[in-house]
C-alpha cells in the first residue's frame, strides 16, 4: 500500500519535472510581459516537429534533433514576439492574448503540413533503463529530465538574480517606464526574454518528447495546459514556485491515475487548480493579491 503510494510519488515527480520545465518558461514570459502567451505550447510543438523532420529526413543523430528543435523553437518564439507582443500596443493585453491564440492555430496547421501523419517517433535520448532503489523504480530518462530541470532552475536563478542583464529584466518587469528612465531598452529586454524562454521551451519539448518517444499534434495544447496549471499552482513570477507547482501537479496526477483513471486524473488536476485559485489565488509562493489596493497604488 504505502509502497504503491511512494512509487506513485516518485513517478509523479519524474513526470512533474517536465511540467516544471514548461512552467519555468511560462512564468518567465508572464513575469516580464504581464501578458499571456497562449502559443507557447504550440511553438514548442512546431519546434519539435522540425526536430523530428530532421530526424526522419536528414540524419539519425540525436544532437542534430536537439539542435534543430531548440533553433526552430527560438525562431518561432521571435515570430510570436514580433507579431503578437511587440506590435500590439501595451494597453490592450487581451488583444495580444487573442492574437497569440490565432498564431497557435497557424502553428498547428504548419506542423500538420510538415508532417501530416497522426503520430511520429521521437528519438530517445539514451536507451531507457529502469533504475532500482530497493522496492522502487525510476526510468533513467525521467531522472535525467529531473536533473536537467534542477540545473536549469539554478542557471536561471543565477542569471536573473546575479547578472546585470537579469537585473534589467527584473527592473523592466517591476516597472517598465521607470526602468526606461534608467536607460534600459524595454524592447530588447522583451526580445531577450523571449529567446531565453524559447530555449527553455526547446529543451523541455525535446526531453519530454524523447521520454515519450513519440509526438502527436495534441502536444501543443497539452504543453500549454500543463505549463499554465503548474505556473498558477506555484505562483506567477516565481521560478522555484513554477518548479514546485510542476512537481505537485505531477504527484497529484500520478496518484489520481493509480487510484482512478485518466479522466479522474485530469479532473483532479483542474479541481486542484480551481480550489487553489479561489482559496489562495497567488499560488504557493506567490504574494497575496489585493485587487483594489493594487489598482490604487498604481494610480498614486
Amino acid at each position, binding site marked *: 500500500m504505502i509502497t504503491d503510494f511512494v512509487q506513485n510519488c516518485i513517478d509523479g515527480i519524474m513526470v512533474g519535472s517536465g511540467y516544471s520545465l514548461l512552467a519555468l518558461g511560462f512564468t518567465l514570459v508572464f513575469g516580464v510581459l504581464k501578458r499571456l502567451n497562449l502559443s507557447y505550447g504550440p511553438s514548442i510543438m512546431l519546434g519539435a516537429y522540425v526536430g523530428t523532420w530532421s530526424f526522419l529526413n536528414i540524419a539519425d543523430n540525436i544532437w542534430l534533433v536537439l539542435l534543430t528543435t531548440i533553433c526552430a523553437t527560438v525562431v518561432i518564439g521571435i515570430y510570436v514576439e514580433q507579431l503578437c507582443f511587440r506590435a500590439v500596443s501595451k*494597453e490592450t493585453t487581451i488583444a495580444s492574448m487573442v492574437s497569440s491564440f490565432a498564431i497557435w492555430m497557424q502553428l498547428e*496547421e504548419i506542423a500538420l503540413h510538415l508532417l501530416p501523419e497522426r503520430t511520429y517517433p521521437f528519438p530517445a535520448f539514451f536507451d531507457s533503463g529502469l533504475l532500482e532503489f530497493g522496492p522502487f523504480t525510476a526510468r533513467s530518462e525521467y531522472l535525467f529530465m529531473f536533473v536537467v530541470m534542477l540545473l536549469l532552475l539554478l542557471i536561471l536563478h543565477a542569471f536573473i538574480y546575479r547578472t546585470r542583464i537579469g537585473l534589467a529584466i527584473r527592473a523592466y518587469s517591476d516597472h517598465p517606464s521607470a526602468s526606461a528612465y534608467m536607460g534600459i531598452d524595454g524592447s530588447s529586454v522583451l526580445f531577450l526574454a523571449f529567446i531565453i524562454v524559447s530555449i527553455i521551451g526547446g529543451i523541455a519539448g525535446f526531453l519530454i518528447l524523447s521520454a515519450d518517444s513519440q509526438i502527436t499534434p495534441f502536444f501543443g495544447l497539452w504543453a500549454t495546459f500543463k505549463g499554465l496549471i503548474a505556473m498558477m499552482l506555484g505562483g506567477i513570477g516565481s521560478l522555484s514556485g513554477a518548479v514546485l507547482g510542476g512537481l505537485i501537479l505531477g504527484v497529484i496526477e500520478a496518484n489520481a491515475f493509480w487510484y482512478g483513471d485518466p479522466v*479522474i486524473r485530469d479532473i483532479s488536476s483542474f479541481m486542484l487548480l480551481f480550489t487553489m485559485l479561489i482559496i489562495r489565488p497567488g499560488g504557493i509562493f506567490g504574494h497575496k493579491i489585493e485587487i483594489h489596493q493594487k489598482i490604487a497604488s498604481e494610480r498614486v
Partner: protein
Amino acid sequence: MLNDYLLTVISNIGMISMIAISAYLILITGEISFGQQAYFGISAYAGSIATTLWGWPFWMALIFGSFLAGVAGGLISALTVRINGIYYSIATLAFAEMVRLSLLKFSYQFEIDGEWIGPNGSEGFGEIRWIFENDISILEYTLLIYLVLFLLIAFIYLIEHSKLGMIFRMLGQDPLLASVQGVKIIRYKVLAASLAGFAAGLGGMLYAHSFTYIEPQIFNVMLGVHSLAYGLIGGLGTVLGPIIGVVLDIGFLESIRGIQGYRMIVFGGLMAVMLIFMPRGILDEKRVHRFKKFWEGKTHV
C-alpha cells in the same frame, strides 16, 4: 437557392453567435472568460435531457437549460469575485474543463421504445430527435434559431442602453472608480456572469437539437477561446460586434474551402495583423460612437 448545406452554415452562425455574445458580456465587464463553453454544454445536456427523457415541451426545456447555465454562471462568478485578470481567466478555464471531464463520467439513461437513450459518458448523447418527431424542416429550425437570437440581441441592446449597461462598462473600464461611485461591484459582476451563462445556454440547447448528437468533446476549450476571439474581431463597442466576428470566421472559412488545409495559416495571420491595428475589434467603442454621431447629424439635416 437556399440549400440544406447553406442553411446549416447559417444556423451554425446563429447558434455560435449566442456563445460569442456570452463571451462579449464578460469582456465588457473587464474580464476574460475561457470558460463560456461550460454553460453552452450544461444547457445542451440539460435541455436535451428535458426534451428527450422527460418529454418536456421545447420552449420549457430551452428556458430550463439556459436558466441552469445562468445559475451556474452566477455561482462560479460569486466564487471567483476576489480574483481578476489572468487568475479569473484560468479559474474559468479550470471550471470549464472540470465540466467537460465530468460529462465524460456522466451517465443517465432511460429505456425508451426498447432503446437506451440518454447521455452515456464519452459515447455522448445521441437520438435528440425533437426536430424529427415534430417534423420541423431545417429552414423552420433556422428561423427558430434566428428568432431566439433576435430576442437575445434586442434584450442585450436594451440592457446596453440602460443604466445597467452603463454600469457594466464602468466595471470594465475602472472598477475602483465604479466602487467609489457606490456601485456594488460584486452584485453586478455576478449579474453579468449569469446573463452571460444564460446567453451561452440558449445557444447550447439549440445546438444540441440541431445536430441531434452531442458529446463532451464538443465543449472543449477551443470553442471558448473562439467565442472570445469573435468579440475581439468584431468589436467590443456593440452587441453586433461578436456577430460580425462569427460571420467573418465561419463565413470566411466556408467560402475559402478551395485552400483547404491552409485556411488557418491565412486566417490566423490575418487575425493577428488585424489585432495590431484594431486591438478592440472592428466596431470598437470609438467607431460606434462616431457612427452614431454621423447618423444623428444626418437625421437632423
